[in-house]
């Protein structure tokens, strides 16, 4: 029997890093700066989280450091993409390569070994939910970052649906020239969005090293950044769509594992593992309409007033 409960429980926790990362990616892309460097920002966040927790013994400090780390990395991307008007795909590729190498190197410097760090203090579970009947135990077992990711998801949805800022970000991503003529500081807004995207990706990393685990493992982002990017596109650059897409990937991943449990038609686990990706391709192939991103996404905007 396939356990629906298992699918739900698992898909929630695996969606979390994707949520953080893809919502970050969404914000950045909405403002007109593509960010295929999310993968690098996740791993960097995971590493910084571990470092913070290791040296202070406080997971909360770790999480904050992860956000700072992701944000700083994003700042580099922002500088190159916005101020220098550099090619964004190139910069992002550099970011990803750099952080993969840097975190591995840092790990070796810190612990004189490869692979994984020592265990560090991680975030406690959310005990306040423990006493809720029936589902209390399940809820309580999740890391607070799980709930934070839901809050962020809601926040991003709200941002774009209801706030002036959201509309301005949309404007900057659609046509920065328009924004500038309205007195909106294009560069500043883009900087903010890119850095926020790094901060969120860093949080996604912190979830990996301090929420889900209590250590840093080399390459522990394991392609989640690319999946997050895919979720942004699959979700058609709409907050709701992006959130659904994250769950789409996590649910289908949980489902393929459950299919292994029931030995689905004796299919090889290797084949089952491809299910989420095949389904994603099918969705893209059979969905109606075209999926267009923000009109000025990826195009550098050279400020006129200088």
């Amino acid at each position, binding site marked *: 029997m396939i356990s629906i409960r298992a699918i739900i429980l698992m898909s929630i926790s695996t969606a979390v890093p994707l949520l953080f990362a893809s919502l970050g990616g969404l914000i950045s892309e909405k403002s007109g700066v593509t960010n295929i460097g999310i993968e690098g920002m996740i791993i960097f966040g995971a590493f910084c989280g571990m470092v913070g927790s290791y040296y202070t013994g406080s997971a909360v400090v770790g999480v904050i450091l992860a956000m700072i780390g992701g944000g700083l990395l994003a700042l580099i991307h922002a500088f190159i993409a916005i101020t220098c008007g550099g090619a964004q795909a190139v910069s992002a590729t550099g970011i990803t390569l750099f952080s993969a190498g840097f975190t591995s190197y840092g790990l070796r410097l810190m612990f004189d070994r490869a692979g994984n760090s020592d265990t560090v203090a991680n975030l406690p579970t959310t005990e306040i939910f423990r006493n809720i009947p029936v589902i209390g135990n399940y809820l309580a077992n999740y890391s607070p970052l799980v709930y934070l990711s839901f809050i962020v998801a809601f926040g991003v949805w709200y941002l774009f649906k*209801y*706030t*002036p*800022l*959201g*509309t*301005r970000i*949309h*404007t900057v991503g*659609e*046509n920065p*020239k*328009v*924004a*500038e*003529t*309205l*007195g*909106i*500081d294009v560069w500043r807004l883009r900087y903010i969005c890119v850095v926020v995207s790094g901060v969120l990706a860093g949080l996604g990393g912190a979830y990996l090293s301090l929420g889900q685990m209590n250590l840093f493992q080399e390459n522990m982002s394991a392609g989640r950044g690319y999946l997050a990017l895919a979720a942004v596109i699959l979700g058609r650059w709409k907050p709701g769509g992006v959130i659904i897409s994250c769950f789409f990937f996590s649910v289908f991943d949980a489902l393929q594992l459950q299919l292994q449990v029931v030995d689905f038609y004796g299919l090889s686990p290797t084949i089952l593992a491809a299910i989420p990706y095949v389904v994603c391709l099918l969705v893209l192939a059979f969905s109606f309409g075209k999926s267009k991103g923000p*009109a000025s996404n990826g195009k550098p905007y050279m400020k*006129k*007033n*200088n």
Partner: protein
Amino acid sequence: MYAIESIGICKYFGNLKANDDITIQIESGTVHAICGENGAGKSTLMNVLYGLYRPTAGSVRIKGKDVILNSPKDAINLGVGMVHQHFMLINNLTVAENIVLGQETGTPLYFDRKQAIKNVEELCEQYNLMVDPTAKIEDITVGMQQRVEILKALYRGVDILILDEPTAVLAPSEITELFENIKMLVSTGKTVIIITHKLDEVLEISDKISVLRLGKLIGTVDTKSVTESELTKMMIGREVLLGGSERLDTKKETEVFLAKDVKLSRDGRKLLNGVNITVKSGEIVGIAGVDGNGQSEFIEVISGSEKKYDGEVIINNKNIKSMSIREMKENSMGFIPEDRQQEGLVLDFPVNYNLVLGKHYLPPFAKSHFLNFEEINKFSEKNVKDFDIRVPSIDAPASTLSGGNQQKVILARETADDPKFVIAAQPTRGLDVGAIEYVHNFLVESRNNNQGILLISFELDELLSLCDRIYVMHKGEIAGHQNKEDFDLDTIGKMMLGLKGGLDG
């Protein structure tokens, strides 16, 4: 009292002096026109006044005070508003959202769209400029968008309004309306600066005129004291004659174009509703009409990029339905698209590449699949010379050319092999009089040469002076048709608005 003054403004782009020591003082409560050729530096100067560009030297004075504009925000705060030559609107947002953008209603945490709609409605009421605040920009006409732009400025409480070529995309009736609005604004004490290439408009609307040439101020004159030809002389240093060169008698015997009952709908909307048009060799046939009445869609159909139409389009005796665009071009057709930058050129390609775009695969430009650069360059040099295209070199990207010169590249290319039939869509949009003169002469010469030309234009004057026959398009239908002998501005104007009364051809 001056509303706004440019004091010795210089703006250099690298070595290019787009503005060179320009001093213009604009009196409060007047309409001040700025004229000049393409690339004379008009937009640049306006952008300086609006805080988009920082001047290389000189200063801006607003209401008597020297100001430093760090961004449009500063200008807006000082009561300056600008409607840009290319509309500054976000297509997938609503009218109301566009208008309040940057000064949103509600709180930072809540964008009160209802309030925005209400405010916009009030604003519309106040200035008698009607728009639907809930419509998306992409769904409204260009004229409407123009109005939204003006409302945007008014919403910000401007008292100095800069309009950069506001009439380039408007239909005559819309232009009349715009001018009424301008007069109304001035009567409420506002100051308007307007840029336009159409000298009759300048003379009609403005109080004073400043003329720029090659980045320098030639002079500022009272409108009452100049004539159109004097103005032209100031602008380009000579007189021009629009309407094309001498028209020869042509045979007009072969039918090069026939549209039979062409219908097109998209998303359930009927865009073309049975259009019938013919063009014969040796004539220029115009399509007049207010923007948004199906002209763009008709162009898409007959130029081959829209295939899902009903009816028949025959070009040079061939039904184009099953033809690719390439086959259509091989069938002796030239096409000058509406939007030269987006549709006509590959801006990042060098001029020589652009001059052979679409013919690059044919001999002599290509030999057994390889490009023949020698021939391409030879061809390019010749055309650059023949068409007087001003380029630094034929290897320079097309993006570095002025609008008029970009248009010449397209003209040269599309007519290089003397096609029997040419579609010319808005060929003079945004061009200065000098360039327009060139295009007009060119079109008439082609006609004299026995080519058939279908000219789509919003400029009624242009159509009247160039065409042998004019069809009027309204709501996707041909509302009427006139021959040169019978041309009557009034009737055509009525047909454009859908009022019956035109003679049917």
